[in-house]
């Protein structure tokens, strides 16, 4: 029988839709894995299917784009008749590497890289086409990663570590990091120029001053200052000044 990987992929796009503090992504992972477990009811028994579905929905947390690898690997292991406790232990063991790989590859790499490119494009006056380009490029990588992860997991089952050892992943991580640094490096002065451009000289000096003070405060983690808190504080002060200065 052909495994319903397409249906599982579609469900994986909602994998964090029921995120909760008790099972984290577990429920979403179970929902995505369930179609791959259905033929256990035929090949083995209804009880085997239900036990596998229950395991699939247990606690899980990793990078959302890479959850598919755990879904595929666990489903394949269930089909291979792997003992239940080993399936559970495989899922637990996958949380760490899939989380850290996704953080490096996507949250700290591909996403800020694309965001940086988009900021450069908008700042150079390319307008809304930049945003179309951002969505197309980012999601080409995003969807490819989800699909690859699911198929690699399903193909290997308990031997899923092989997929994570692939040199292409290391190479991707090695390219995406410097690319992100380059794109964001270029984006920051360009965006500052784009945002500051319409202001008169004194207001530009104010922009620079606030940015400088903010950067220092945000670089001192002990202070507990976040971008949101700093933004709210500075805007509140500016409202008072702006209202009084007539």
């Amino acid at each position, binding site marked *: 029988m052909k495994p319903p990987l397409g249906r599982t992929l579609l469900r994986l*796009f909602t994998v964090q*839709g*029921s*995120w909760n*503090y*008790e099972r984290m992504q577990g*429920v979403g992972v179970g*929902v995505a894995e369930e179609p791959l477990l259905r033929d256990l009811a035929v090949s083995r028994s209804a009880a085997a299917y*239900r036990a596998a*579905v*229950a395991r699939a929905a247990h606690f899980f947390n990793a990078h959302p784009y890479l959850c598919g690898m755990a879904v595929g690997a666990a489903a394949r292991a269930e089909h291979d008749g792997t003992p239940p406790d080993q399936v559970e232990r495989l899922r637990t063991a996958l949380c760490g590497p899939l989380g850290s790989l996704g*953080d490096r590859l996507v*949250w700290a790499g591909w996403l*800020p890289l694309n*965001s940086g490119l988009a900021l450069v494009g*908008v*700042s150079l006056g390319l*307008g809304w086409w930049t*945003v179309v380009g*951002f*969505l197309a490029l*980012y999601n080409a990588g995003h969807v490819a990663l989800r699909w690859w992860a699911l198929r690699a997991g399903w193909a290997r089952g308990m031997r899923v570590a092989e997929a994570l050892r692939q040199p292409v992943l290391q190479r991707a991580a090695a390219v995406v990091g*410097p*690319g*992100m*640094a*380059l794109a*964001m*490096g*270029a*984006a*920051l*002065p*360009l965006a*500052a120029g*784009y*945002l500051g451009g*319409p*202001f008169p000289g004194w*207001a530009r000096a104010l*922009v620079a*001053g*606030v*940015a*400088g*003070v903010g*950067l220092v405060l*945000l*670089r001192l983690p002990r202070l507990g200052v*976040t*971008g949101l808190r*700093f933004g709210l504080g*500075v*805007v509140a002060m*500016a*409202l008072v000044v*702006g*209202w009084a*200065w*007539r």
Partner: protein
Amino acid sequence: MSLEQQGLLLVWGMLVGLDLASVPQAMIARPLVAGVVAGAILGDVGTGLRLGVVFELLQHDILHLGAVRYPEYGPATVAGVSVAHAATGALGIGFGAVVGLFTGLLGGVSLHALRRLNTRAVQRASDALEAGDAATLVRLHVTSLARDAARAAFVTAVGLLLAAGVRGFLVGTLTVRGAMVVAAAATGAAIAAGAAGTLRLVGGRATLGWFAAGLLGGAAGAWLK
């Protein structure tokens, strides 16, 4: 702003809020995307882009480590654009930032509340889940998705109300110079957040070199422009 436009902004804010964590995480929740489409709905893509850049920079300050609470800038940008659009040019950025920052704060709080509700629902269903009841599993998931849609719509609606309030009461009380102080302060804060967030990601010496190269190139480009 017409009622149709308000309705469209509400729907767009809901989709943006859903995208952040639930479905499909295609990054329409990024402020740049959320802002441009909100601007297009209002016939003012320029303001959408400008406020989008401000919140896109602020977004870089957020690290996704563990279940740490973070603000939600997607629906916030949508609400912010609806007020920034009311003032001319760059002056509206300050008002947009006021509305956006508060809405972003509310978004973060609402996400935590949503996750608590989801937790309780999962706990209630735990016997059925342990029995491998697929129907309950799917129902639980779909209900949670619907809950997030309602949450995102609620946050956007509050943001739009806040925007209407700021348009009605705040915009008129500030002089052009006063509005400019607020806009400049918000812009400075956004640049600081973008720079701090990037520096946190740029770790080793090799990436630092690439960052410096980008910085030089970007500075040259900005100067030439």
